């Protein structure tokens, strides 16, 4: 130890040497060995930014869709799905926006798609429309009853469901969900006052159901309905004597 260090106690002098050596070593490493750009945070991030920039853009954004599909946009903007972007359901559409004729975006029709959000799950928020995909109109694509751009749940008139709630709930998940109660039943005004003495009508002829389910049915609603030959199928009976119309069991 030099003369300067003799003024300090021996352990302190030795520690000072060690600390000075370490600081000098650290400073040498920091200032000399490490190139300046490496210490720059922007330099460290440069590669990450470059990688992100190099990734292909696949999404177009809903504003681009609006340019051509203004009508759908107008329908959607007030409906329940107004907060969903077009590409949420239709997938990335950048390629479609650049070449609309050649590249078509996906239209999800599989019954597994909508239940991703609407399948029954007890922990989903109250009031959120949920269905049991197994019991709720199986085999039918969701869009055959619900317009995905303006989904409104089919409703039974309140004046019917007030007393016939059970039927209303059953019908709500059946193939006949789209039919108004009054399609099949004529309910006189008096039925609401004295429901037991004045009853609504029931279809009395096989031809009534045949309008949709007859072999030659032309009704627009009957496009996907199961068809039978009324001449050969249970000719002695009115249809509802065998088939419960609020939850028809026949599958396509």
């Amino acid at each position, binding site marked *: 130890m030099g003369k300067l260090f003799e003024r300090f106690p*021996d352990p302190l002098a030795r520690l000072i040497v060690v600390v000075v050596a370490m600081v000098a070593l650290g400073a040498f490493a920091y200032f000399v060995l490490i190139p300046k750009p490496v210490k720059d945070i922007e330099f460290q991030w440069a590669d990450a930014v470059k990688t992100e920039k190099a990734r292909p853009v696949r999404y177009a954004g809903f504003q681009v869709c609006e340019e051509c599909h203004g009508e759908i946009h107008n329908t959607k903007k007030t409906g329940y799905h107004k907060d969903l972007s077009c590409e949420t359901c239709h997938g990335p559409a950048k390629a479609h926006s650049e070449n609309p004729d050649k590249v078509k975006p996906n239209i999800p029709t599989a019954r597994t798609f909508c239940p991703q959000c609407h399948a029954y799950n007890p922990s989903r928020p109250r009031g959120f429309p949920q269905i049991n995909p197994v019991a709720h109109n199986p085999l039918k694509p969701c869009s055959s009853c619900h317009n995905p751009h303006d989904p409104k749940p089919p409703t039974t008139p309140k004046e019917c469901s007030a007393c016939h709630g059970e039927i209303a709930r059953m019908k709500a998940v059946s193939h006949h969900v789209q039919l108004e109660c009054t399609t099949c039943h004529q309910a006189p005004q008096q039925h609401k006052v004295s429901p037991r003495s004045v009853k609504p009508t029931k279809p009395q002829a096989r031809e009534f159901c045949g309008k949709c389910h007859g072999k030659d049915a032309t009704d627009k609603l009957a496009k996907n309905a199961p068809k039978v030959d009324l001449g050969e199928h249970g000719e002695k009976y009115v249809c509802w004597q065998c088939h419960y119309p609020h939850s028809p069991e026949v599958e396509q």
Partner: protein
Amino acid sequence: MNPEIIRSLQELLPQIQGYIYPNEIEIHWGLLIVVYPYITGVVAGAFILASLVKVFNVKEVQPLYRLSLLTALAYLLVAPMALVSHLGHPGRFYEILLTPQTSSAMAMFGFVYAWYLMAVLLLEIWFVHRTDMIDMAENSTGATRLLYRALSLFSKDKGERAVAFDHKALKVITIVGIPSAFLLHGYVGFIFGSIKANPWWSSVLIPIVFLFSAIVSGIALVVLLYMIITPLTGGKINMKCVDKAVDFLFYAVIVDFSLEMVDFIHRVYQSEEEIKILSEMVMSKLFLSLIIVQVLLGMLVPLLLISLTKIFKKRFSLNEDMRKMVYFISVILIQFGIFATRWNVVIGGQMFSKSFRGLTTYKMEFGGIEGLLYAIVLLALPIAILFVLMKVLPPWKELREEGETGTEALGGAGM
């Protein structure tokens, strides 16, 4: 969901309850992050025990002084391994020191750690063992002599002035060391406490609860090591010392328990929207680790056991073996309890969904870097390091200072 992801999560998916967000199915902070606060806790606790001797002049625990310091060092060396192993790029850990982000609590930890290691623990251990190292260099030959000479920084001065400086320096370092130890472990609690999006962690009491549980685990571990090492090396356990250390442990457990209860009562009284899911989590997923291991076995049973030795003081003071057994069981239970505390904070905080409507689950791996085996290695490593440290810097001098048999004869004999 992607079928590949479903396949990889098929063991977890059936165990999920309620509605959780898709990114919450897998828990990202696993066993290593549980091990990490446990280890830093031991470091802080062991150092606080050591400071009882130097700062607060508690003569009875003098035999534990060197052992506590070496324990703290052994555990401190392993502490960052858990974090660095958990990183996606462990080879880049030094960047945190090269380009520090002053706004990042994690980055600042690097400096707190370095400060604690270099300026507190190593320095204190060096001053404590300096004269011994000079002695050992003089009494040995060859490589050993060179090792001790290097360790003592080639000092040969055992004069009055140098020794007086050693004592003065030790006191200053310990005084600086106490807030540093608090900072080291308080910071871990600070990280958890400042994640305000997570109601299980977001509490101002968390750093303080962490601190007291650290003190509890550190003292308990050093007592446990002392009670195991001393008989193994042919010494006699100094019951006066153990009694006093357990006294401090007892008070620390009471404070720790009270703080946790205050936190718990505050949560229940406040009853914010998360209370339902948290209570469901505590009663289902964390029942064993929180209610049984942490509270019952880790706190209430040791408190009861130690209380018994105080209530029936006469009976216990006559029967030293009985007292030893009660202490031994208590400190082991406390270790499990504190480990469960860390587990419940780290894993518990990630088990409930941000939707507050569902609970996910933690599937522990056995092998791999995040697995049980590696965690066991990390927990065993400090013991191995301590073994080496004790060989190089024997703590026997003070470990047996007031021991009854063969104190000096065995001094420096190793294990």
